[in-house]
């Protein structure tokens, strides 16, 4: 079995991104005083989520395109 490294990367960042986004929605605005009033948890969580999903998407596409052959 040949595991594409994009699966664990995509999986991890999707989960972390989702958690941060949700935390950003429910956390009190007071904690964002440090970060110049920007809800960085929400916005950066979204960035991570998108990055993770893109990685997963690329990995699945490669998996479907042909049986995995690594190397060049």
């Amino acid at each position, binding site marked *: 079995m040949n595991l594409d490294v994009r699966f664990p*990367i995509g999986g991890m960042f999707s989960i972390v991104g989702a958690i*941060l986004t949700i935390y950003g929605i429910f956390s009190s605005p007071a904690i964002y005083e*440090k970060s110049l009033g920007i809800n960085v948890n929400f916005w950066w969580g979204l960035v991570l989520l998108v990055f993770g999903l893109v990685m997963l998407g690329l990995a699945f596409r490669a998996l479907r395109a042909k049986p995995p052959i*690594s*190397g060049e």
Partner: protein
Amino acid sequence: MLGIGWALRRVIRSSDDFFLSGRSIPAWIAGLAFISANLGAQEVIGMAASGAKYGIMTSHFYWVGAMPAMVFVGLFMMPFYYGSRARSVPEYLKLRFDEKTRALNAVTFAVMTIFSSGISMYALAKLFELVLGWSFHGSIILSAVIVLIYIFLGGLTSAIYNEVLQFFLIVLGFLPLVLLGLKDVGGWHGLTAKLATVATNSGFAPGAWTHSWTYMDAPSHNPMGIEWFGLVMGLGFALSFGYWCTDFLVVQRAMAAGSMTAARRTPLYAAIPKMLMPALVILPGMLAIGLHASRGGFLPLGSDGQPNYNLAIPMMLAHYLPSGLLGLGLTALMASFMSGMAGNVTAFNSVWTYDIYQTHIRPGQTDAHYLRVGHAATVFGIAASVVAAYSATRFNNILDMLQLVFSFVNGPLFATFLLGMFWRRTTSHGAFYGLLTGTITAALHYGLTLPRGVAPGIHGGFLGAVLHTYPSEMALNFWTALFAWTGCFVATLLISLFTKRTKTDDELRGLVYSLTPRIQEGYMPWYKRPVTLAVGILVAATVLNIIFW
């Protein structure tokens, strides 16, 4: 947050038999692992510390140092490494020269890994001190225990997988910090204005922190205390080429690549993200010193009355990131500390066990015996790292200390490699005594010179007489490396001319440039050849130098 990181690491660890079974890995993955092996705590903490202490001139480590060196590794050195199937630097030296050269290098390399791991341990302990509020002594013990457990649980078995993951973790964990910091000071222009105050307060021209070349006409005009010649030759040539060409912690990553072409592309692919890294690691340090000047005391002062530049990144994290994202930032930091320490201790273990103990002390024992020796070496390595960590407390910038170690080990070694790989007449005696001369030259230079404003001792000048005073620690490191390189080069050259060759041309096939078949790449379209990529990288690095001139 930390829990998720750990849980995922466990899942990943079990699934990477694929790398261990010797399957080829694509060049882009090897490239990311290559740069990640170098993106340890030293890089993140040290480059930010230097950004604060020396300003944008720190970018020379990237655009003058790393770029040409990485291109050189990919184009010229990789064919020997990949082709000779040597698994470590000492092993290559044995194939090219003899056992005694291998042993000498194994010893200096072992010392270097201990210092590297000790510096990571110091940085991790500082972080615990800050976050948990523990004493420094308690924090050091905690760090040592964590690394010990990490290694014995097999933390490094999945090295390449973890490293690629860690690369993204660091980039994505630190990027929001840089963006927030830049927004806070009002962009690059706001930062320039703040750093002008920093520069004039230290007695330099206002642009000294934000121009990389303008003030390099004389050592007294810039914070790094170096003129263009010492920088280009000391850092650009001796230190950087020495590090990237001979540090096997890094080079080994390229050896896992699937083919010779992929192995040569590995450092070239790695150079692309490496080129942009200053924005992520130097900029936070510059922001921190800007805040330090305008708010009066953002960085804690050390015992020498100077700001402790090492705390630039931890303080920035605590200052800008709210809980949630702070967890991600800390996870990214911890990940880099952990792999930095574990990688070095594991390298120490293998060099000691295979290159020194098995070869010179007790050959012909059972595997179980060597395994026990290896375990003992790991414990010893961690204990020695603790000592090195305490010596790191004497430096307000860990990059100063790290480059000092490199100037002793990698500086002279690069001369040995250069002669060994490109001149078949280089003899074993020449290599051994040359390397010894180079290391002794480094010690003499370090012992007889001193950076300004410090007492003789760990910073240099311990041999009694101080013949020259450098404006900064980094300037001393650059010149130490250059002296060491020259000492080794000249000695190796002269001794080789007066001693007999011990290896025939046949034995040197694949180890020396003129005796190795040229690689045929004519079948590839021009835009796919490594040379094209290399030229592109050098052009881009030049453009960056001009932008920040």
